[in-house]
């Protein structure tokens, strides 16, 4: 391509950053909502067809700014842009009139932060965009203004501020250890820093708040259900991934093997993946279920992060796997969240159509063959294959992954179950439907044309898994289905028993 | 020599008496008289003390003359004030004034 990427990057970040200024004119509120889907488009352009090897020097910015893109960041940028676009389309149909300006302002700022932190390479602007996203996100969470929302918001804010602070401290220490203002110098410096463990702890905790690390996750299940649906879609689709990105760009991957930290992260990931599932299936509100599912999915990614921490040689491979997985999960989870807002058409035919479309991304999460999920799961398997990994907990990774897969499907089924209880037939606003359909399409189809690459992890063509792989994918799903069926039966019986016990 | 000293001592005694009167007596006229007594004591010392081998010294005499004039002027003023004060307040002493923490002549 021949258009100047740096300019495009500047536009991509500044458009949503300056868009809130429209709110100053009260008579522009009509227009504002229709601009929402437009905001991420430059970023989308940059991520999809821009050639990733560009740099933008902003010497006047903060402590000297540098923006650039590499493959990993490009993937995250793409995910962010796509998700925010479809969510924006969805929001146009979804939003009510009340406080629309406020919502649009927060939306724009959060988006700007989310995009900016993916392209920022210098510490100053990275941290700025991260904080911008955090604080503006508050506005999205409490938008509905219910007491529940305010409570969720308070929890979110408290944890977010704590997270910001530990990030600040960590970055300060790291920067002075590296004596540089660029993220790219941190890992190497961290490897030698004498306060290494302190810094790593601070950074893991700080970004962990966003990434929903176990014990730092409390805000997620509170925030997602109360937030407006498009907001929760981007929250768990894109913003969670920001924490992940934070880890990936700051921690000393590939420099030294930190088996201790690796083990810790793996353990955390395991707890997240399974514990969240257990808590999730007990939820009654669909979006709460999805929130827990996000936590458990993040848990799986944390597994990989831990492995990468522990094993420097393996890190590059795992990075691309993590990227892939993040992309897949973001899109699928986004479309799942958006599906929580649709309402069924009258016709039976249509209903089944809708249900299939709702279910497919979920199943793809669970690794249904011929979906991005299948690819991601296989790639993860390959990435975490124990023979190629050399650290303590390597042995227990495969069973964990299997358990994770089961948990995933269980959660998805639980979600569908609760949703079926909640969905009612009615007229869906066209834009809303459009957004949702776009999301589904992105997660199921467009995914295959996205610029992820997996250096020989899985046999090509990827969307045609070999039979042994199919089996590997399917049997956990069968177990999950069996469990689900069992659960259904049980509660049926108990209910009928209750009915039987009732005196006539 | 001793006679001069005698003058001086007498003067000193007068001074003492005058001072006592000025501080102790409450009637204003008496205060005034006490002042005059004290003054004459001072003058006595003045002419008495400075004596030289060359007989009496003329300068103190001149000075004392002036001093007497000043004393007379002061006395006159004081008398005027006291009379007027008596007419205004009917009191002949400074005591018994209300609402002031000041007492005594100083």
């Amino acid at each position, binding site marked *: 391509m021949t258009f100047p990427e740096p300019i495009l990057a500047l536009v991509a970040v500044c458009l949503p950053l300056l868009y809130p200024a429209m709110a100053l004119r009260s008579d522009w509120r009509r227009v504002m909502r229709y601009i929402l889907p437009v905001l991420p488009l430059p970023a989308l352009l940059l991520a999809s067809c821009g050639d990733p090897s560009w740099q933008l020097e902003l010497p006047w910015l903060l402590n000297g700014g540098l923006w650039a893109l590499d493959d990993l960041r490009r993937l995250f940028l793409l995910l962010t842009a796509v998700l925010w676009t479809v969510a924006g389309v969805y929001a146009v149909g979804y939003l009510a009139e009340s406080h629309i300006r406020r919502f649009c302002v927060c939306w724009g700022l959060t988006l700007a932060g989310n995009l900016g932190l993916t392209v920022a390479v210098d510490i100053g602007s990275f941290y700025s965009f991260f904080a911008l996203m955090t604080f503006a996100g508050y506005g999205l969470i409490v938008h509905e203004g219910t007491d529940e929302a305010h409570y969720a918001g308070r929890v979110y804010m408290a944890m977010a501020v704590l997270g910001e602070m530990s990030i600040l401290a960590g970055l300060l220490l790291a920067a002075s250890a590296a004596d540089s203002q660029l993220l790219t110098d941190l890992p190497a410096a961290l490897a030698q820093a004498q306060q290494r463990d302190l810094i790593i702890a601070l950074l893991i905790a700080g970004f962990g708040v966003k990434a929903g690390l176990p014990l730092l996750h409390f805000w997620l299940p509170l925030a997602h259900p109360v937030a407006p649906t498009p907001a929760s879609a981007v929250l768990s689709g894109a913003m969670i991934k920001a924490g992940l990105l934070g880890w990936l760009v700051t921690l000393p991957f590939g420099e030294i093997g930190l088996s201790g930290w690796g083990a810790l992260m793996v353990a955390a990931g395991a707890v997240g993946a399974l514990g969240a599932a257990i808590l999730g299936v007990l939820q009654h509100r669909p979006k709460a279920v999805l929130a827990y599912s996000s936590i458990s999915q993040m848990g799986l990614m944390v597994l990989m992060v831990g492995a990468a921490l522990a094993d420097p040689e393996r890190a590059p491979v795992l990075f691309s796997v993590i990227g892939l997985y993040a992309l897949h999960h973001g899109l699928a989870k986004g479309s799942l969240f958006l599906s929580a807002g649709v309402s069924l058409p009258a016709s039976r035919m249509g209903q089944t159509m809708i249900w299939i479309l709702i279910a497919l991304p979920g199943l793809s999460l669970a690794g249904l063959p011929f979906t991005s999920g299948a690819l991601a799961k296989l790639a993860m398997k390959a990435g975490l294959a124990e023979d190629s990994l050399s650290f303590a907990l390597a042995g227990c990774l495969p069973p964990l992954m299997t358990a994770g897969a089961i948990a995933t499907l269980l959660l998805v089924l639980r979600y569908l179950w609760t949703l079926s209880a909640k969905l009612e037939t009615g007229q869906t606003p066209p834009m809303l439907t459009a957004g949702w359909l776009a999301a589904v399409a992105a997660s199921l189809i467009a995914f295959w044309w996205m610029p992820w690459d997996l250096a020989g992890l899985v046999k090509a063509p990827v969307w045609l898994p070999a039979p042994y792989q199919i089996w590997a994918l399917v049997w956990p799903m069968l177990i999950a289905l069996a469990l689900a069926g069992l659960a259904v039966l049980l509660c049926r019986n108990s209910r009928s028993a209750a009915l039987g016990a009732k005196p006539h | 020599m001793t006679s001069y000293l005698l003058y*001086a001592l007498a003067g000193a005694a007068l*001074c003492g008496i*005058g*001072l006592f009167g*000025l501080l102790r007596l409450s009637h*204003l006229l008496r*205060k005034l008289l006490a*002042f005059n007594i*004290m*003054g004459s004591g*001072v003058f006595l*010392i*003045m002419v008495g*003390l*400075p004596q*030289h081998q060359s007989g009496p*010294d003329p*300068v*103190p005499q*001149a*000075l004392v003359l*002036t*001093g007497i004039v*000043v004393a007379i*002027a*002061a006395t006159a*003023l*004081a008398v005027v*004030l*006291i009379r*007027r*004060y008596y007419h*205004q*307040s009917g*009191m002949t002493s*400074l005591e018994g*004034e209300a609402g*002031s923490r*000041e*007492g*005594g*002549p*100083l």
Partner: protein
Amino acid sequence: MTLWLMAGLLFTPLAWAVLTLLTDFVWGRRVTWVGILVQVLVSLGLWLTVAQHGGFYYDLGGWGAPLGIELRVDGLAVTFVLLTAAVASACGLHAGVYIDQHKPWHRYFWPLFWFLWSGLNAVWLGGDLFNLYVGLELISLSAVGLVALGGNANALRASIRYLLAALLGSLAYLLGVALIYGQFGTLSIAGVVAWLDNHSAPAGPGLALALMITGLALKTALFPLHRWLPPAHGIAKSPVSALLSALVVKASFYIAARLWLAFGESLGSLAAAQMVGLLGGAAVVWGSWLACKQAQLKQVVAYSSVAQIGYLFLLFPLTYSVSESVSLQAQQGITLQVISHALAKAAMFLAAGNLILSVGSSRIDALAGVSRFLPFSLFSFGLAGVSLMSLPPSGGFAAKWLLLQASLGSGQWWWALVLLAGGLLSAAYLFRIYRASFAENPETDQFFHPSKSLEIIPMVLAVMALGLGFVSEQVLSVMALPFAEEGAP
């Protein structure tokens, strides 16, 4: 030239005193304006002469000491002459408008005013002890007369008390003079110093010095001999109080200071010096404390005079047996203190007079809202206050700075504490007044507006007091070595 100046300086006041005796108040005012003009011009001329050619001795009518009157015209003296001219003319102009011309006895204001002025000039210039005594008496008597002008019983009581105190003081001083003369056979300060320089100090004259200084301290109202002052200054008419506080008390202090600096080293003792200093410090604290307690505006100002006078007596410890430079600093500091206090206190009394005139009551709490109705006078009051609190950039601050330097330089740090405490205490009682005037209470909205001239005069004085801080170096340089005994023509 000099002859004319001296003649003008010494005899115009007397002449005008006689002249104004013959006129009524209004005419007296007109005459006085001319006289003030003459006096100011003459004082200025003399000051310039000395500033150019240095000080000199002047034998009045060619008669030398001891029988003749020998005048000592040095930088310090002419500075004080000039100061007198400034303050006295301000008070005179103010009084001309302020004093009610319909009371018949008020016509005596003018002669008394002029006698006072001539007495002051005599004291500043007087070179020998006895002439100083005469000048002192002249001042005291006319001052008493001025206080008595109030006419009512309280004024008379105050004036009588003042008179008795003054007489006692001057008798004590005269006694001291007698002893000195008996000892040294001369009355000229310079002569005595010369005698002391080539003889060893005898024991007797210590008593003489003590007597004189005690008498003068009584006239200067040094604590605990201060009790006559507040009623007198408080009850007199504002211009009169201004004259009294600004100049009259300074005259007696001036003599005491000159005596101390001349004889102190040889006749005084460390204990005596510290003792006087201690009394001064006590005066600062006690006077300020009482000032905080007063309910009447002018009483506050009067007690602040008691406190401010306390500073002056720090001269005694700070110049006794200390290095030359420290002593010099102390003298300069005290001189500045005298000048700035004279200007500031005059301004303050005049401004207070205006305030009282406008609110129609002399109580402090009656001042509520005056800051809205009479801001100008209040502002001059405030400026004068700045100098009294010895806050920068006033002359009071310059003085305080020098005194601090002196006390720290001579290792007598406790005087530094006294100075600082005094500043804070003065702030305490002055801000009481500002506080009252800033208060807003709607029910008192009847304010009489005095004429502009009444308001401008104190402002001028206050600004002078304030500006003194910036030009103090020049002022000090003109009065080359303050209190310098040598300076023969």
